[in-house]
Structures are given as structure tokens and as C-alpha cells.
């Protein structure tokens, strides 16, 4: 309750008390005999006037105090809060306190100082930023390299808390832990989330990692040079990860954490397994058939006089077995199994890109123009584009030397599991003999030379080449290059390139290394050190108890005082009911947009895992928590995490402010809301506000979770129930 209200209440109580007492005495006075009344009249006399005078004086004083409070104390309180805001969080904030001329002058003076302060602060921030950028530059380059490593890398402290991960590790582990309820695996690890500060054991089997760590410990004790341990982790859908475990030691060679390096060997194992299986079956079946043929033939040779009927029978056996041999080879599909296999490391490239590059390089390096017929093949091929392009340029330059051709026409067509690329020219056709001579030549184009022969480059690409001339077009000769079409069903990982981040990338936080080994009780934890899940919900309406449902949950994490935008939870939910027009006007989500999305019973378990071991933060959390609470019975999901509410915290920080809506707080604290009334947009805005509130709470002596919760409970807004 504000002080002004207290004064108003005390005044009112006093007036009521005086009125009730007066009425009481008046009623007693009425029941007295005339003689007694006269005595009282004489006794009171001037005293009654005195009483009225006192009452009037009191009323005037109360009115005066209230006026003074409204005109002076309240504006002064707000003034103090807002000046503190300018100084602490938002230097762009300006005072809007109403009041008399005295206040207007004061506000103008403070705002003028604020303008100067903002300019100075901006200058300082720029300076700090540039110094910080220099310091972080090297670290960020390393981090960016780490992000692009082909291996998945994940660093944990010794308790298994994740301090760093790269995108590849996240992809591997997400696939590794992908849902497959059929296999009866531990459901708690379904859709496990990889994130800073989370435990690796929520994603991977603790026993396997612990075993590797035990192995490392033994190696360390024995002073072995190689202290790395390996294991293979098998995912729910059969993914195989080869995991290299490397210890992180401090100066005293004490174990402080470990690095896990992942390599996805699923495809490799599948291929080698299939080939090994094929070879093994092939050997067994060929051995059996050839044994039958050999025994039969040797019997025929050893007994040339055997009777005709037996000889015919033996011939039949030989024929049958030779047919069987052919069938074995056909059935094993060895040609298909091996035709696209090349051990050279190649990358998937779009045919159109390869051709564009070829046309440009031919013009640039050889002055040769190639006009390709338009084609619409979406195919990709596996290529080392540099050596393949140079090999084709080599061919063009040789043809140019032999025929003087400077203009080529090009054509691309699909032919079975290959694409063929035809390069045609007017003039003498190229002989196969010439191609055979090229085979042994090293690739040289202008000043560029490859350490490979032409045949090696063609072989590396699993390609074939032949020269031919079209009988109908007498003067046209062609060269056809067959390139195996790449299997796009096993799509390569999309890599967008490395963009050096301005601020510290969100996938590592080595400061977490320094965190206390065994944290204090959560209630006593510093607000700056706790991990939070800041969330917001959008709903079908505002009455959870009358069947309104959640239609969207958006959440982000705050770990070690950093908002991790990349570790977010953004899910639309099919409420299986209509959406009230008033809510529709707010969030704009229509029921049709939600039809293909999961229902709340599927989403809540995932959200619970996302928010595991964190404090929940929301704006007006009472509403969101009630929405979750009404689903407890039907879903069996109960959120027992402690909750902080930015609405209540705002009231704690700025009790003199009347408006604690998300917009008002955002304006006060200088936070821009992007995507207001989307669960994700509001969650991000709430998270930013919460981060700004932590130092303001500290200024008021509120440092721990327990203190923040206690202060919240005392606010007027904490009484709102849903």
C-alpha cells in the first residue's frame, strides 16, 4: 500500500471514530432526564465549540497533508525512481513528472543533465565496445572455427555441465536422441535438449561416459602419454556416434572437465557392413557353386567311360551351377554397389553451379566460349570442383590445340544414374587413341598444374569419358563426360558459412568452469548465477478454469546472465477448440493455423524437459502458471520449478510507478519489443527486461532467489489470482 493511501485511510478512520462516538453520546444524552441534560449543557457550553474547532482543524490538517503528499512527496518519489532509472539502466529515459512550476523546472534541469549523461555514456560505451571487440576478436575467431569443424565438439566441466558445443555436436546429438518410442528407450531422454549449462547426461548415457572417464583416470595415474578414451554410442534410431573423450586438466594435472568429439559413423558402418556382407555371401555362394562344378568336372575327367545317363546328369549339374554363378553376381548387384563409390573426398555440388563455373573459367583462362543449351536438371554431382574444372579445361585446351576450336556448345542430360555432359565443336572428331594418350598426362592449364594425371582425376570422380561424332551432323564432334549423380537422400549438412560474431557466441561459456562445484541451496543462489527459462503463452481466452487453452508457448533460456537466443522453444499448439474473438484480435492466431500442430499433451512434456533445472520467469506469471496448472490432471505434467514474475519484480523495483504492463516496463527500461503478442516475442522481451531488473533488484538489496521471491510476495499485484 502506498503512503498516500495510508494517510487517507487514517484520516477516514478518525472521522468515522469521532462520528460514532458523537452519535453514542448523543443517544445517551437523549435518554437522560431534563435536569441532567441541563447540567451537561452547562458543563459542555463552550467545549462543544472547541470540539468542532478541533475537528475542523484536524480535517484541514489531513487535507493539507494529503495535498502535500500528492503534490510533493509522490512526485518526488517518482522523480527519485526515474532518476535512478536514468543512472542505472536506461540513459535514454526522460522524466515526465507532473507538478507545479517548481517541479517543471526541476524536471527540465534533470532531463538536461540526462541528455549530457546519455551522450557521455554513449561515448564511453563505444569506447568500451571497441576495446572489448579487440579483446574478443581472437576468441571469437577460435569460436567460429570451432563452430565449423566437421566433428562435433562438446566441452563439459567435471560434473557433466555443458560449457561449449558446436552446431555439429548439437546436430549429431539431436539425431542421436531423436524420438523412437518403438524401441522402449528411456523416454526422459526423448528430444533431449543440448544447451549451455545443461547436463550432458540428459542426452547421453552416463555409464558410457563415466566408463571412458574411469579409463582416462587410470591412464593419468599410470602417467600414460595417450590419455584419450573412445566409445561408440548407439542412438535410438540406430545412429552410431564414435565418441573420443579427452580430459581437460589444470596446471596440477587435475581433472577439471572433459571434451567429447563426435563423429557420425552410421553411414560408414552401413556401407562397410553392406560391402562386407556382400563379399561374405559372395564368397560363400561362389565357393559352393565352384566346388560343385569342379567335383563334377573332375569326376567326368577321371572316369571317361562312365555310362551315358550319368554323364548327362553330370552335364546338367555343371550347367545348373554355372547359371547359378551368374545369378549370384546379378543378385548381389555388385556393379550398382560399387559404381558410384570413390574414395576421393568429394563434395556435393549442383550441376548448374559446376557448369556456370566451367563456362566462366573457360572464358577467363583459355578465351574459349561454351554455350550450354538450357537444362532443368536439379541434379547434384559429387565433385572436387577445382580439379574437375581444371581437368575439363585441360581437355578443352587440348582440343583447341588439335583443332583450333574456340567455340563449344554444351549439353547436359540425365542418363540412368549418371548425367552426361557433352562438349561439342565443329571440326575433326577426337580419337579414342588421343584420349588414351591424355590419360597419362598431368593436368596443366596455363600456370596451374595438378599433381594428378587426367585418368586419376576421372577415376577419383567415378566418371567416364568418351569421344564420339554424330553421324547425322558430319562436321560436329563431341566429347561426353559421364558423372555419377549424387544421392541427395542423404543430404549434406547445410553450412551457411562462418560469420564472425560481434559478441560472444552463444554456444560457449567458459566462465561456467569457474562456477562452484556444489552450488548452494537454490533459494540462496545469486540471481546472477541461476539458469532461467523465460516463457510466455498465448491462449484461446483469458479464463483457464472455463476451458481456455494454450495455443502457443515461446521460451528462451538465460544462463550465467546471458540470454541464449539460439536455445529457444517455440511451439504452436492445436487447442482443439475455438479461439475467442477478443484473443484473436490480440495475437492474430486463427484455429485453422493450428490444425497440424501437436496437442498440449504432446507439447507439455517437451516444454518440461526444456525448462528442467531452471527457474521459470514470465510476465504476469500467475496467469501462465494457472494455464499450465489446469493441465496437470489431464497431462500428468506438473511444473514444480520456482517462478519469478517480472510484473511483481517491477512493482518491487518501482513501487511509485502505476503502470507495470510489459510495454510500460519496456519503455522505462529501454527495451524494444519485437513481435509483441507472439509467445516468442513476449518471452524474449520479458527475458531482456528481467536481465535489466537484476541490477536494480541488487540496488535494493535483493540478491538471491529467496529474497526476490519474498519481495515479490509483498507487492500489491501478488494478490491477483486466476
Amino acid at each position, binding site marked *: 500500500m502506498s503512503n498516500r493511501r495510508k494517510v487517507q485511510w487514517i484520516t477516514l478512520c478518525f472521522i468515522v471514530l469521532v462520528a460514532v462516538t458523537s452519535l453514542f453520546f448523543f443517544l445517551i444524552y437523549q435518554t437522560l432526564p431534563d435536569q441532567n441534560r441541563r447540567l451537561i449543557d452547562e458543563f459542555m457550553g463552550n467545549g462543544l465549540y472547541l470540539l468542532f474547532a478541533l475537528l475542523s482543524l484536524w480535517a484541514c490538517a489531513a487535507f493539507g497533508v494529503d495535498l502535500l503528499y500528492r503534490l510533493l512527496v509522490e512526485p518526488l518519489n517518482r522523480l527519485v525512481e526515474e532518476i535512478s532509472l536514468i543512472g542505472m539502466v536506461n540513459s535514454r529515459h526522460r522524466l515526465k513528472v507532473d507538478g507545479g512550476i517548481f517541479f517543471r523546472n526541476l524536471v527540465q534541469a534533470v532531463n538536461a543533465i540526462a541528455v549530457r549523461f546519455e551522450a557521455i555514456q554513449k561515448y564511453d560505451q563505444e569506447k568500451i565496445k571497441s576495446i572489448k571487440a579487440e579483446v574478443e576478436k581472437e576468441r571469437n575467431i577460435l569460436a567460429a572455427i570451432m563452430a565449423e569443424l566437421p566433428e562435433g565438439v562438446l566441452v563439459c566441466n567435471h560434473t557433466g555441465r555443458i560449457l561449449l558445443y558446436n552446431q555439429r555436436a548439437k546436430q549429431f546429438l539431436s539425431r542421436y536422441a531423436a524420438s523412437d518410442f518403438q524401441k522402449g528407450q528411456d523416454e526422459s531422454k526423448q528430444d533431449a535438449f543440448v544447451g549451455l549449462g545443461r547436463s550432458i547426461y540428459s542426452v547421453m548415457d552416463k555409464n558410457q561416459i563415466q566408463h571412458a572417464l574411469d579409463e582416462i583416470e587410470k591412464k593419468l595415474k599410470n602417467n600414460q602419454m595417450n590419455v584419450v578414451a573412445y566409445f561408440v554410442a548407439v542412438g535410438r534410431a540406430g545412429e552410431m556416434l564414435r565418441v573420443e573423450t579427452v580430459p581437460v586438466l589444470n596446471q596440477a594435472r587435475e581433472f577439471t572437465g572433459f571434451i567429447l568429439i563426435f563423429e557420425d559413423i552410421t553411414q560408414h558402418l552401413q556401407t562397410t557392413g553392406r560391402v562386407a556382407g556382400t563379399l561374405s555371401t559372395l564368397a560363400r555362394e561362389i565357393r559352393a557353386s565352384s566346388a560343385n562344378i569342379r567335383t563334377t568336372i573332375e569326376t567326368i575327367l577321371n572316369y571317361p567311360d562312365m555310362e551315358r545317363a550319368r554323364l548327362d546328369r553330370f552335364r546338367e549339374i555343371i550347367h545348373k551351377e*554355372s*547359371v547359378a*554363378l*551368374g545369378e549370384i*553376381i546379378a543378385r548381389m548387384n*555388385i*556393379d*550398382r554397389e*560399387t*559404381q558410384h563409390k570413390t574414395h576421393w573426398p568429394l563434395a556435393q555440388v549442383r550441376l548448374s553451379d559446376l557448369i556456370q563455373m566451367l563456362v566462366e573459367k573457360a572464358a577467363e583462362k583459355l578465351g574459349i566460349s561454351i554455350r550450354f543449351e538450357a537444362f532443368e536438371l536439379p541434379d547434384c554431382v559429387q565433385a572436387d570442383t577445382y580439379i574437375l574444372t581444371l581437368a575439363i579445361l585441360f581437355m578443352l585446351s587440348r582440343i583447341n590445340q588439335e583443332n583450333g576450336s574456340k567455340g563449344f556448345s554444351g549439353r547436359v542430360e540425365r*542418363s*540412368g*544414374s*549418371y548425367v*552426361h555432359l557433352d562438349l561439342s565443336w565443329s571440326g575433326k*572428331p577426337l*580419337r*579414342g*587413341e588421343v584420349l*588414351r594418350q591424355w590419360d597419362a598426362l598431368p593436368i596443366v592449364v596455363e600456370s596451374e598444374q595438378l599433381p594428378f594425371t587426367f585418368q586419376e582425376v576421372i577415376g577419383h570422380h567415378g566418371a*567416364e569419358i*568418351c*569421344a*564420339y*561424332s554424330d*553421324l547425322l551432323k558430319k562436321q560436329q564432334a563431341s566429347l*561426353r563426360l*559421364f558423372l*555419377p549423380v549424387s544421392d541427395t537422400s542423404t543430404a549434406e549438412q547445410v553450412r551457411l558459412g562462418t560469420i564472425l560474431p560481434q559478441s560472444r557466441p552463444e554456444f560457449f561459456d567458459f566462465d561456467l568452469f569457474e562456477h562452484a562445484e556444489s552450488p548452494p541451496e537454490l533459494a540462496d543462489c545469486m540471481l546472477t548465477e541461476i539458469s532461467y527459462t523465460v516463457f510466455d503463452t498465448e491462449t484461446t481466452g483469458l479464463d483457464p478454469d472455463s476451458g481456455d487453452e494454450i495455443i502457443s508457448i515461446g521460451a528462451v533460456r538465460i544462463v550465467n546472465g546471458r540470454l541464449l537466443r539460439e536455445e529457444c522453444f517455440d511451439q504452436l499448439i492445436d487447442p482443439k477448440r475455438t479461439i475467442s474473438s477478443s484473443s484473436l484480435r490480440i495475437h492474430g492466431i486463427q484455429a485453422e493455423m493450428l490444425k497440424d500442430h501437436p496437442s498440449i499433451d504432446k507439447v507439455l512434456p517437451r516444454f518440461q524437459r526444456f525448462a528442467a533445472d531452471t527457474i521459470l520467469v514470465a510476465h504476469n506469471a500467475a496467469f501462465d502458471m494457472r494455464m499450465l496448472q489446469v493441465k496437470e490432471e489431464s497431462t500428468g505434467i506438473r511444473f514444480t520449478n520456482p517462478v519469478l514474475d517480472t510484473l511483481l519484480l517491477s512493482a518491487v523495483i518501482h513501487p511509485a510507478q502505476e503502470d507495470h504492463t510489459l510495454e510500460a516496463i519496456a519503455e522505462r527500461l529501454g527495451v524494444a519489443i519485437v513481435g509483441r503478442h507472439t509467445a516468442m516475442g513476449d518471452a524474449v522481451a520479458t527475458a531482456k527486461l528481467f536481465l535489466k531488473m537484476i541490477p536494480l533488484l541488487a540496488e535494493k538489496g535483493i540478491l538471491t532467489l529467496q529474497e526476490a521471491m519474498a519481495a515479490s510476495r509483498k507487492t500489491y499485484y501478488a494478490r491477483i489470482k486466476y
Partner: protein
Amino acid sequence: MPHKVLIVDDEPNIVLPLQFLMEQNNYEVNVASSGEEAIEKIMQFEPDLILLDIMLPGIDGYEVCEIVRLNPKWKQTKIIFLTAKGRDVDVAKGLVLGADEYIIKPFANAEVVSKVKKLLGDGP
């Protein structure tokens, strides 16, 4: 006049039965065991059809095919590749070089006879 068939293969164990097979089907047969010998025999023997292996010592079967196709005199000569090279691309390459048929080893005798007869117009 019987049609003439030239068998080009360096593997005598397949040449012998093939030769016998062709002779039994009333073809006049000649044999070569390398690319160079094949070119010589083509010039002398002037076959109507060549059963041509690809992997040959010296000039390979592709090149023999190419030489035949580049000579207008042998325009009508039919070529069947008879080979252990069984990849899609081998077949495609053989056909683009001007072969009329492509048979992958191992094959059924009946298949070879039927394709030879068809190309030479002796078939049913």
C-alpha cells in the same frame, strides 16, 4: 552365302564355345584376341557382325568400335559388346560409341544367338 561373324576376345575359354555356337548356327566365324588383330581381321575378313570384348590387350574394344564407326566402308557392320563391364556407365559409353547391342557376362547362349540373328536379319 552365310553371314560372317568376328569374335574378338582374349579369353580362349569363351572364344572356343562361342565359335562353336556361331558355327552351329551356320555363320562363318573368325577370331581375334587383341584390338590390333581385330582391326586387321576386319579389313581382311570384312565381317557382318563383331562380338567384341572391351578389355583387350593394346587397343581396347571401345577404340575398335570407334575405328569401325569412323570408316564409312564398315557402316553396315553390326557390333555387339560382350563384356564383363557391367556398370550403367559402361553400357551408356558402349552405345554412344556406336555399338548395336551390349551383353554383360555371364550370359545365356540363347541370348547371344537371338541378338546376333536379330541384327543380321536371320531371326524369326
